[in-house]
């Protein structure tokens, strides 16, 4: 995994969560800029996933490969799934869904990095 990309994703994700929380508290629905933001975040996640799969094809494998792949699939699918689900709701609860997704995404990346290079 590319470490700086993980940190970029985590930072962007938290920023996105903050933005969406503000929208929720200001009673705004999810708008096109939110969707674009999620698109950019998703591209970053896909970039990380591709880089990781390439590294794995090159023989670099985490010990718990099955667990790692299931986490990787989750982080790739989570942003679009939540973006669609949130965008369908035309109230302040749309951005609330995105905020939730963007708060757990960094946690999932912490787990991914732990599985990729265990400290212990």
């Amino acid at each position, binding site marked *: 995994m590319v470490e700086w990309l993980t940190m970029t994703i985590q930072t962007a994700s938290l920023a996105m969560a903050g933005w969406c929380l503000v929208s929720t508290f200001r009673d705004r629905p999810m708008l096109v800029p939110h969707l674009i933001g999620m698109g950019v975040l998703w591209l970053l996640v896909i970039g990380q996933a591709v880089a990781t799969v390439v590294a794995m094809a090159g023989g670099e494998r985490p010990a718990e490969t099955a667990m790692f792949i299931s986490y990787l699939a989750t982080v790739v699918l989570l942003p679009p799934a939540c973006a669609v689900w949130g965008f*369908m709701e035309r109230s302040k609860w749309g951005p609330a869904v995105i905020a939730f997704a963007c708060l757990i995404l960094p946690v999932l990346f912490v787990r991914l990095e732990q599985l990729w290079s265990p400290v212990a």
Partner: protein
Amino acid sequence: MPDTAPASEAARTLRTGPGRLLVAVYGVFALAATARGVYQLATGFDEAPAAYLLSVLAGVIYLVAAVGLARAGRTSRRVALVSCSVEMVGVLVVGAVSLLLPEVFPDDTVWSGFGSGYFFIPLVLPALGLWWILHVHRLDRD
């Protein structure tokens, strides 16, 4: 896409408004608990079968709750109500057992320590779910 649904009973569903967020959280927990349980069952069934089976069971209940909340209709509302109730009881009982009799579950589950490993979301989620279902139910009745 129609904006807000008309206030007829058939159109009012659990998935709009706060329910939208609940379904998302339930979906993620269904995935997390099921994946965790299945993985643990597959890799070390002998170590703590009760804990791992409980994780899978919790995952299935979360999934049923998510589907019940996401779908319209009287039946799915009942399904959501039952699954949220089961969860509430589950997290309270398993949480208490994990603290009082830790030897029953040698490995952690989503409900151990009242969901402390998952920011106590497993404890708060069924309470919010039940509140939301009853809230919508009351709106319909009035």
